[in-house]
């Protein structure tokens, strides 16, 4: 059992500056939890508080049911993988991996056996006697992982461990980390600023902003039901399109289109009537073809990003900038007038002032 429970945890730097403020969070035993947010949002600070590398100035932290608010890092039985890998440059790969066991008094024979097993699992067997400086970036990353795994800690804490790798290697390591997690099944906290990493790796994701937790949930759950505009825009690329809107008599009115809501939507958005609203539409909810529940919008194509596998269109529609993600075969010329079809079942509605979302009905249920 190594669940992590944070209650009202804050990191106060003095002078009214907080790294994290009043964070309540439960990370379940064996869960892969991603902390996601822009730089300075407090995600690394939170991880470091769990590790014991940063003081908790108020609130409480427990790991596996035991209070660890002020426990020394070495007594928490956690392992940290740092963004810089933080390998000991004067030690061989073997000694790097074995250092933690040595510190905890594991005998030489068992230490060697576990080092060899970990190296084997991570494909490091050939490099055991090298110094870190003689390894590539990807190999260093693996040594850092090996050093963490071999100790069999209760909790893995990873602070942007993939951000120093190139794109190809990053994609590979993403898969490998998920595979390793599935094997060892240990509670893992993974900090990242990359929404793709969070979406693809986390059992759940926790989105932070300015030291506050915005939303916690399963990736697709959060993607489909973001609690506010920040989460909605941060989780997709290109960010969700945002338009001023009004709702009157079951009809949404915006600069680019007006359309009637389905019955379930009318009911769900009852509270949104006659308030200043913001309509959110994801880029992939525009289509090249018409269809049931889709409404046509017409605009001038300003830029097209043809990525090969798909195209991102940037349109000017009645003065509004709209990004749409469409099939790769739809390839209009820049400057052309383009008609796209907005899937009205997939819209999001936010309060224009508080920027919080109104709960929306499941788009699939509307289509059924």
């Amino acid at each position, binding site marked *: 059992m190594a669940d992590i429970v944070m209650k009202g945890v804050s990191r106060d730097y003095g002078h009214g500056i907080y790294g994290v403020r009043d964070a309540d969070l439960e990370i379940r035993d064996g869960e892969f939890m991603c902390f996601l947010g822009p730089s300075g949002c407090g995600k690394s600070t939170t991880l470091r508080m769990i590790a014991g590398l940063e003081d908790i100035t108020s609130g409480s932290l427990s790991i596996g049911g035991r209070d660890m608010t002020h426990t020394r*890092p*070495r007594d928490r039985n956690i392992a940290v993988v*740092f963004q810089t890998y*933080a390998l*000991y440059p004067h030690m061989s790969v073997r000694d790097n991996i074995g*250092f933690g066991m040595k510190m905890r008094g594991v005998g030489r024979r068992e230490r060697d056996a576990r080092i060899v097993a970990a190296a084997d699992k991570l494909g490091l067997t050939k490099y055991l006697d090298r110094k870190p400086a003689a390894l590539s970036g990807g190999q260093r990353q693996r040594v850092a992982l090996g050093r963490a795994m071999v100790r069999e800690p209760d909790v893995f804490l990873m602070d942007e461990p993939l951000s120093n790798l190139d794109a190809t290697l990053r994609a590979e390591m993403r898969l490998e980390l998920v595979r390793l997690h599935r094997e060892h099944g240990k509670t893992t906290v993974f900090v990242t600023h990359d929404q793709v990493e969070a979406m693809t790796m986390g059992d759940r994701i926790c989105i932070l902003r300015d030291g506050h937790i915005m939303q916690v949930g399963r990736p697709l759950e959060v993607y489909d039901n973001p609690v506010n505009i920040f989460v909605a825009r941060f989780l997709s690329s290109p960010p969700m399109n945002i338009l001023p809107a009004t709702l009157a008599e079951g009809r949404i009115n915006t600069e680019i289109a007006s359309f009637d809501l389905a019955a379930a939507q009318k009911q769900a958005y009852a509270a949104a009537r006659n308030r200043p609203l913001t309509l959110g539409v994801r880029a992939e909810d525009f289509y090249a073809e018409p269809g049931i529940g889709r409404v046509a919008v017409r605009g001038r194509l300003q830029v097209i990003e043809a990525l090969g596998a798909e195209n991102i269109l940037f349109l000017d529609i009645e003065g509004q900038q709209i990004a749409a993600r469409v099939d790769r075969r739809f390839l209009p010329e820049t400057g052309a007038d383009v008609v796209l079809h907005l899937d009205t079942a997939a819209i999001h509605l936010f309060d224009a002032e508080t920027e919080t979302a109104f709960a929306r009905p499941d788009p699939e249920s509307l289509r059924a």
Partner: protein
Amino acid sequence: MSRASLLRHAALVAICLVVALPIFWLLRTSLVPPELSYDPRIWPEFSTENYRTLFAGNGFGRNYLNSIIVALGSVLLATPLAALTGYAFARFRTGGKAARFAVLATQMLPPVALALPTFMIYRELGLTNSLTGLVIVYAVVNLPFLTWILMGFFEGIPADLEEAAITDGATNWQAFLLVVLPVARPGIAAAVVLGFILAWNEFLFALILSGPSTATVPVALAALQTSNGVEIGKVAAGVALAIVPLMVVSRFIQKYLVRGLSFGGVS
């Protein structure tokens, strides 16, 4: 070889001669009979008389041993202290900017102003004319400089490394001994070498605080230049010998200092 290349090589040879000539002449003067020191011929006659009289007549062996004891002793005393102090400054914001400035400020006092008070205190303590006294004074005088150097090296070591060690189960003390110190080895080597050179070459304190039996090499060299007229042959021999340990430590310099000892850039 092209003409430009020939010219370039000629220039390099000329420069080498300018640099090397004084050193060659020093050796030459030390290895001819004393009465031929000022002889214009390149090498009129080989003789080790200067060296023999330097050791037999002037007891230079004693001075040499004194210098080695004092320089080694002071550096072995000062470096561990400097390492701990420098680490504290680098990591724990100890004393803040004011304390760092204080370290530098000590380097600004004119040594002449420190010499007299030191002499008076030493007389009270009975430390004049003792090697122990010189070891202590050099350790104290060099401590701030060595601290400053090591502080720079420790600051260059990412805090991640210690945090990794601590989460790996090490105590703060183990993290320092097993991770930080080994990584800072080039810095430690630089500090040891610099501390040794500073102590080996120091003249003022040695002159004031040492006596006949504890005089160091620089004091002995100065004495040769004034006592009996200038005995240029013996001076040359003494200087040649004084350079030997510096040549030895220079191997460390080439290995560690040239790379490691550059002053930090603009922040």
